[in-house]
């Protein structure tokens, strides 16, 4: 091995100069600067007789190269070239013929009338030239659609069981491609596939097993039999083993089974297979199963531990990636590998090193944090930003796990913040510090100090404004708010307009919250009124005027707790208002609210391994637009178009078991005077088509069903929606109810294979679970950044107070969870977290009630031997809202 390496390097030394010269002379790439049109022109040579195989081969290669470079070829051009290409079937030259097959496959989707070559390909597929047969089958299947499949079915069946492996593999793989569109025809080839699994060739065995599973995959019993049969009868192909392990894993997951089943025993036995590929697949499978105990995991983990010291990077990578996954759920199981993982920190492959580090961060205990941080800092400078981000995410998880270690971690984060790095990396660190500040009050002062230092020299406007916003929110509530003012005012002097504007807003918040700083803040803000930028001037003028009024309610509404509306909704509402001029002023309450709770979710999620960031971002985006989407969907239904603005949509609630004939979910859409129940139905019977589907609801207690919008047709497995519109009771305090529901529809039986329904149908119904409307459905969560200010703003006018004994809950955490869930309000100022060891706590909740009334709740909780005692105080801008909320708990 050593010897050949040295040979190679001598070779390189000898030949490098020559290569360089050749490339300089333009001989580097004969395909360079190929024009698509020239090549297509040249393709006309295919029509010449006699055929020059060599020349045509070269032209065809050029054509394939051009296509491979991503050049788009028009349908007309492709058709012309395709037809010219068919002429080449006259030549028997093996290479040319094979290139023609490739050409056919490349153009099968662009050119027209490609079926013209069917007979030529069928001749090759069944002919004597073995070399042609496999590729010919694959080319043929690329031009075949369902209607033509019947005519080649007989040949395909024969080819699947052909004794030449290449032919059999080609037929099996093509069958799998075809089954995407022609599931039913391919299903008939199950016997042939079965026979092919017994082939001696490892690839044929793999492909046949894949096809066999694909055909049977919806029949659980058949799949179970398939696994138990082939797990005993030893397969030869490691690839087939891997596939069988995946099938078995899926079965175990579906049945929610754990260890001790034959399936699990099979996977476990694969840990002793001779092929590394199979061993790893089995280990990975065991690790991924949900119902595994530490004992089940142990053999898999020890196999992975062995792989960690393999000389092959791929194997080390695979092992540490999988261990990383184990560490998320069972950190204890991986502790045994800590030594091996620490060795991998210095791995030349940075992917492996980073995975090792993040795994260690997950498995490490509190005492090892210091040592780990030291190790990480030694290699941070060597890795790319992408990996640094992963490390930061791991540290963030660590901050949440060991709040007492915030000192070490904060210092480390601050030093990373000072180092060189791109925007994404810096943003991740800032996010991590902010999250830590919010989770851990003890870390707040240190964190804010680090961030202050960072904005002194921060080139990213986005980050600077974000930090200034945070300082404005958190700074005033620290023991010494004045020390932050200097950092903030420096920004006004030194930065660009966006940052200056953010700094102005932050200063205003200090002024609004801290009376002793009010005068100084006004002075600073007055100076900003001379700014060169109009936004900065506008803001400072506005804030100076509000602050000078010295009214708590004004400061709270306009400085401390800003607007809580959905920006998209506001834009739409304003646009609508300008289109229809009216005397009435614009009503802020008609604007849909920002959906706070779903964005909140993101912060709680513990960051995982690599590659999870995109999903988080897109989930966030979906959350922000969910309500807007519902609004649009409902507005598109004429019967429901004039209900006004959608106030709130609930999360879907299942009102059937998920395994029943008809699967129904209910979403409640709340409007000012109406409620729309959206029933998403799925028909899981493949021999029925449902028509005119509606849900009958028994209204009562003042509720009244106004309209039903039927779902016209509900074919097998295609979800459809039906709506029921209900008017809310006149009496403002009656808002809750329980409604029994029945699904009504007309059934038409149909042929499961074709989906063709009978002419006659009959009416039928299906009883669903009750749908409940609770107080929480009428409330939209809104986070008040400064609860005390809002509390004063609303005032004691409609205050109601009551004391309750909550006998059923035993801890403050449970009480908080129940109250929050019941009222559907947003916990403010992190008051949903109880400091450890406390026996009393105050919970602050805020939100907006249907109709746009502010709703604020203060719940003082005290824990004693009999349970939790609660003093509930409700303030609202509307008396009936106070009443509803105050009585909701009882």
């Amino acid at each position, binding site marked *: 091995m050593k010897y050949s390496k040295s040979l190679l390097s001598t070779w390189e030394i000898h030949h490098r100069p020559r290569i360089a010269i050749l490339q300089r002379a333009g001989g580097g790439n004969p395909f360079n600067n190929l024009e698509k049109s020239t090549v297509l022109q040249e393709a006309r040579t295919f029509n010449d007789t006699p055929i020059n195989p060599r020349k045509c081969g070269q032209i065809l290669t050029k054509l394939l190269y051009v296509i491979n470079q991503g*050049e788009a070829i028009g349908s007309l051009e492709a058709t012309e070239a395709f037809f010219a290409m068919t002429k080449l079937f006259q030549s028997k030259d093996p290479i040319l013929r094979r290139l023609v097959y490739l050409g056919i496959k490349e153009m099968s989707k662009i050119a027209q009338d490609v079926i013209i070559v069917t007979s030529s390909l069928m001749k090759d597929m069944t002919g004597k030239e073995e070399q042609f047969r496999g590729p010919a089958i694959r080319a043929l299947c690329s031009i075949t659609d369902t209607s033509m499949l019947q005519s080649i079915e007989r040949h395909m069946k024969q080819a699947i069981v052909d004794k030449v492996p290449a032919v059999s593999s080609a037929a099996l793989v093509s069958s799998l491609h075809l089954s995407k569109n022609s599931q039913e025809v391919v299903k008939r080839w199950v016997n042939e596939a079965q026979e092919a699994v017994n082939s001696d060739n490892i690839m044929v065995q793999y492909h046949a097993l894949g096809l066999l599973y694909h055909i049977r995959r919806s029949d659980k019993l058949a799949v179970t039999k398939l696994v138990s049969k082939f797990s005993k009868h030893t397969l030869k192909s490691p690839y087939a083993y891997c596939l069988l392990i995946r099938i078995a894993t899926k079965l175990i997951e579906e049945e929610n089974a754990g260890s001790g089943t034959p399936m699990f025993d099979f996977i476990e036995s694969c840990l002793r297979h001779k092929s590394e*590929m199979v061993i790893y*697949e089995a280990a990975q499978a065991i690790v991924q199963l949900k119902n595994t105990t530490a004992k089940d995991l142990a053999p898999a983990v020890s196999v992975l531990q062995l792989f960690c010291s393999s000389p092959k990077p791929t194997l080390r*990578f695979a092992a540490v990636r999988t261990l990383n996954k184990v560490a998320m759920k069972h950190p204890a199981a991986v502790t045994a590998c800590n030594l091996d993982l620490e060795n991998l920190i210095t791995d030349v492959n940075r992917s492996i090193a980073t995975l090792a580090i993040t795994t260690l961060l997950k498995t490490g205990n509190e005492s090892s944090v210091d040592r780990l941080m030291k190790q990480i800092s030694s290699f941070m400078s060597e890795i790319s930003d992408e990996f640094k981000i992963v490390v930061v995410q791991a540290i963030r998880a660590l901050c949440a796990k060991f709040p007492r270690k915030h000192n070490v971690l904060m210092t480390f984060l601050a030093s990373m913040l000072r180092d060189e790095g791109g925007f994404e990396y810096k943003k991740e660190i800032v996010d991590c510090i902010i999250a830590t500040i919010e989770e851990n009050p003890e870390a707040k002062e240190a964190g804010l100090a680090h961030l202050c230092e960072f904005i002194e020299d921060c080139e990213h406007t986005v980050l600077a404004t974000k930090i200034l916003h945070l300082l404005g929110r958190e700074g005033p509530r620290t023991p010494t708010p004045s020390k932050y003012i200097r950092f903030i005012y420096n920004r006004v002097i030194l930065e660009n307009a966006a940052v200056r504007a953010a700094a102005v807003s932050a200063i205003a918040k200090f002024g609004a919250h801290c009376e002793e700083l009010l005068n100084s803040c006004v002075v600073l803000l007055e100076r900003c009124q001379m700014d060169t930028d109009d936004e900065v001037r506008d803001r400072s003028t506005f804030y100076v005027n509000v602050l000078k009024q010295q009214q708590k309610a004004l400061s709270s509404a306009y400085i401390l707790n800003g607007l809580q509306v959905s920006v998209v909704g506001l834009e739409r509402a304003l646009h609508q208002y300008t289109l229809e001029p009216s005397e009435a002023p614009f009503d802020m309450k008609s604007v849909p609210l920002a959906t706070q709770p779903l964005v909140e979710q993101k912060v709680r999620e513990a960051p995982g391994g690599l590659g999870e960031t995109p*999903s988080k971002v897109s989930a966030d985006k979906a959350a922000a637009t969910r309500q807007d*989407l519902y609004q649009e969907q409902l507005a598109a239904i004429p019967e429901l178009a004039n209900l006004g603005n959608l106030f709130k949509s609930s999360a879907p609630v299942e009102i059937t078991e998920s395994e029943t004939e008809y699967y129904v979910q209910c979403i409640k859409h709340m409007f000012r005077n109406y409620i729309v129940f959206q029933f998403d139905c799925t028909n899981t019977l493949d021999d029925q088509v449902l028509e005119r589907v509606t849900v009958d609801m028994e209204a009562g207690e003042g509720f009244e069903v106004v309209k039903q919008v039927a779902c016209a047709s509900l074919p097998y497995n295609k979800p459809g929606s039906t709506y029921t519109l209900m008017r809310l009771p006149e009496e403002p305090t009656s808002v809750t109810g329980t409604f029994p529901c029945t699904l009504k529809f007309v059934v038409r039986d149909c042929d499961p294979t074709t989906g063709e329904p009978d002419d006659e149908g009959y009416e039928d119904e299906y009883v669903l679970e009750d749908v409940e409307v609770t107080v929480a459905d009428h409330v939209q969560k809104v986070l008040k950044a400064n609860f005390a200010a809002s509390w004063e703003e609303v005032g004691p006018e409609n205050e109601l107070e009551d004391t309750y004994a909550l006998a059923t809950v035993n801890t403050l955490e449970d009480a908080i969870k129940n109250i929050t869930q019941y009222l559907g309000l947003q916990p403010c100022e992190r008051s949903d977290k109880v400091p450890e060891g406390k026996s009393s706590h105050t919970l602050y909740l805020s939100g907006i009630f249907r109709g746009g009334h502010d709703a604020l709740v203060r719940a003082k909780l005290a824990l004693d031997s009999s349970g939790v005692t609660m003093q509930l105080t409700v303030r609202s801008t509307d008396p009936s809202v106070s009443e509803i909320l105050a009585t909701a708990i009882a």
Partner: protein
Amino acid sequence: MLVLISLFTAIDYHVKKANMDGGILEPSLYSIKALAILDNDGNRLFAKYYDETFPTAKEQKAFEKNLFNKTHRANAEIVMFEGMTCVYRSNVDLFFYVVGSSQENELILASVLNAFYDSISQILRKNVEKRALLDNMDAIFLAADEICDGGILLEADPNAVVQKVAIRNEDIPLGEQTVAQLTKKLEVLQSAKEQIKWSLLK
């Protein structure tokens, strides 16, 4: 979190994709997302994509450039990139890549790369460099076609692949051989000589 995501699947395709990536692997033969060969400037010499991860040529080339930038200096064999697993191998001025899902068994991907590299190495008679590759582009297309069909691993044994491609340069009459092919033969002779010299020295 997963439960929450599943609520929005109908709304956001990306969420759905992310969700699927997170779960267990669907038992399927479709394991290869792409095969590619790039030159030492990161330009595409050969690339074939088998699923819809990168639907347009522009996105594909952007991906290749980024991948190349990330891999051309560190010869590390495997890298996690844009949420996918890429195994790679380079020689002189060529970079061979196999791309699969981040959930895919890395060793299967490595075996595909092995088949890809070794079969081409045999076709190019161990002379794995850009010039030789371009002179044998037809064989490269055929080899890739024999290794992977529409995302399914068709043949993993490099010898079997070479045998199926069955290109015999000897069949070409001398007059039709290009200068490049002749120089290559000289090179082969040269390296054979070297080999003998070395074995004698040893």
